[in-house]
């Protein structure tokens, strides 16, 4: 049922999604308004994240092998999804955990929304590139490679800008905390590694304990 409330909600979502295009061209204004004027929504952020993952997966199948040969034997689609979601998650948590201690104004959700909004250039460039890749020969590949690199650099630089705006940091402080956030990510990875290896050791202990008990009883 298309009630007027639903239509309203969709219009708000659509407006917030279109705002991502504004952010892609106006990083300073855009990301300031994103949180301070509340023009970003989780729905739009999730859509962009979904598009990004979709672009990455579709690249595998549909990019010409001349540009990007794929070793199918080793491809795991879930790992491909994780290769975007996992770094995103630890970046968001790491960045928020650090900046919240140092006068960062952004909240966890806002860091997430802003980071997702920053990723828009990736699907925006990669989807046309998939089509383009099927029209180029090896000699013309440089064009493709350059554009592909642009899409990545665009995203990375925009994330730095966005963090500066939502946390209300000066330029220098922003750079400092970007680097610090990267270290925070490393710490998180280290702790996760530790955690999982401990857990598996613990589980292994109880499994062998149980086996031993069964051997004794039988």
């Amino acid at each position, binding site marked *: 049922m298309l009630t007027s409330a639903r239509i309203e909600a969709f219009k708000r979502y659509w407006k917030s999604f279109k705002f991502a295009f504004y952010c892609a061209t106006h990083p300073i204004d855009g990301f300031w308004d994103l949180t301070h004027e509340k023009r970003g929504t989780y729905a739009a952020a999730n859509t962009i994240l979904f598009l990004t993952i979709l672009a990455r997966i579709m690249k595998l199948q549909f990019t010409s092998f001349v540009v990007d*040969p794929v*070793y199918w034997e*080793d*491809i795991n689609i*879930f*790992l491909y999804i994780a*290769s975007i979601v996992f770094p995103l998650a630890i970046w968001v948590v790491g960045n928020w955990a650090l900046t919240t201690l140092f006068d960062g104004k952004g909240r966890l959700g806002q860091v997430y929304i802003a980071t997702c909004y920053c990723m828009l250039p990736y699907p925006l460039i990669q989807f046309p590139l998939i089509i383009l890749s099927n029209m180029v020969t090896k000699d013309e590949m440089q064009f493709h490679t350059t554009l592909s690199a642009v899409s990545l650099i665009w995203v990375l630089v925009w994330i730095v800008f966005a963090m500066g705006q939502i946390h209300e940091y000066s330029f220098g402080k922003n750079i400092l905390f970007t680097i610090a956030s990267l270290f925070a990510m490393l710490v998180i990875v280290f702790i996760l590694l530790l955690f999982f290896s401990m857990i*598996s050791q613990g589980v292994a202990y109880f499994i062998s304990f149980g086996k031993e008990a069964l051997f004794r009883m039988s």
Partner: protein
Amino acid sequence: MKKIQAKKLVKRLSALVASAVILAGSSLAFPLTAQAESKYTYCYDYWGDVQDSPDAYEVVGVYTAADMGLEKPISNTASGLTVVGNYFYICDTGNNRIVQFERIDREHIAFVKEYTGFKGNVEVTTFNKPNDFQINEEGYIFIADTDNNRVVKLDPDWNYMMEFTKPTDNSLDAELVFQPTKLVADSAGRVYCIATGINKGVIKYEADGSFSGFVGATPVVYKLWDYIWKRFLSTAAQREKMVSFVPTEYSNLYLDHDGFIYACSSGLAEEDLKSGAAKAVRRLNLMGSDILIQNGEFPVYGDIYMGNGGGYTGCSKIVDVTAFDNDVYVLCDKERGRLFTYDSQGRLLFAFGGKGNIDGYFMKDQPIALDHMGYDLIALDSVSRTITMFTPTEYGKLIYQAIDQFDAGQYEDSGKSWQAVMDLNGNYDLAYIGVGRALLRQERYKEALNYFELKYDDDNYSKAFKQYRKEWVEEHILVIFIVVFAILIIPMIIGRIGKIKYEIDTADIFKF
């Protein structure tokens, strides 16, 4: 070289992502993809994975001294094997003789004659540890008489003509004893030889016996860090004990039908081969520059996996090379006892062999001498003191036929031959590419594209695609024109209509 690194990167990235999952749940057990025990013959695919292949060569026979009709078996240091027509000569180093055999038919060989010396007006007319024997196109005989420190030239009746001795060159150590080991002689009588302890390249003599220089010296390979350490940081005492940076010596030579010299080296370091700093095989022109074409997915150095295991260490040690008249050449690896066959573009056609006591395998750690008779291969194994004769199977013959037909311009036939190869071995990249290339030459671009895409041949794919794209654009020029026109013009018309509408709506005359 770049291509391999990129490919490795693709594979490594997948491995990296895989390790991320292990991180996420280390209790997840990954089934190790155990590489199946490789068969006798194999090839590498685009990704460098080993693909088993039907045998391209089969053993006709393994001949011991008794089979060959020899009273005294060949010594275990025999090192030279040369084919001339239907005859072949073994340079029996340990017994100071050269033995001639004849191949009577497909399976039988017969002892012809044994030479322990030659006639002539010269002090020593016998051999002392001869290591190589060659007959040039004019029929003159050249022998690397190693421990007599000379290369002798004989006329076809084994009469002494002249000898080539230690080069008179200031850069050579005066103390050095000249011990020529391998040689080739061209039709003009020029001699190219390599000698123990001389690493400046191949020694070249003019036909009159004068030394005319070194050709094709291998560039010295060293690591930057080693250089810095040696040059600036180490003490004199340390430096004395260090290995000096010297070029590697060649291990063998082969003169092909075009007059170019194939030269192989066996004592190379793995990392130098992988980085491309050192080359296992060179094809030298008269100037001594390397003209070997390396268009394959992997450089020409034998096995691309150099791991230790099963008693083998490191890279393939190429000790002999022989080239057919269609520029296909075979390398012989003494480390794993394998023969590697490459085409003129440096692409591995197939590799076969191994270490062991079975027919078609070789014994360990001794150089194997190799030569060819037509497409048949003859290999001398000095440990088992036997000769192994290989002949192409139907599969091997089809591959050679396809290559020859393509070189002769019979593209359609070549495509059919490659198709036949593909029927025998569906995992063979070159068969697909061969069919594709034949189609490309017949201007059937769309079909060719399909074959190239299946086996990741981006060079040929690009060639075919360029033509296909051109044809497509020419055929669809009208459609393209209309689409472009529509994209450019329609928004303009819409804008204009909107503008007129706006003007009408806001025009004063309609305001009452």
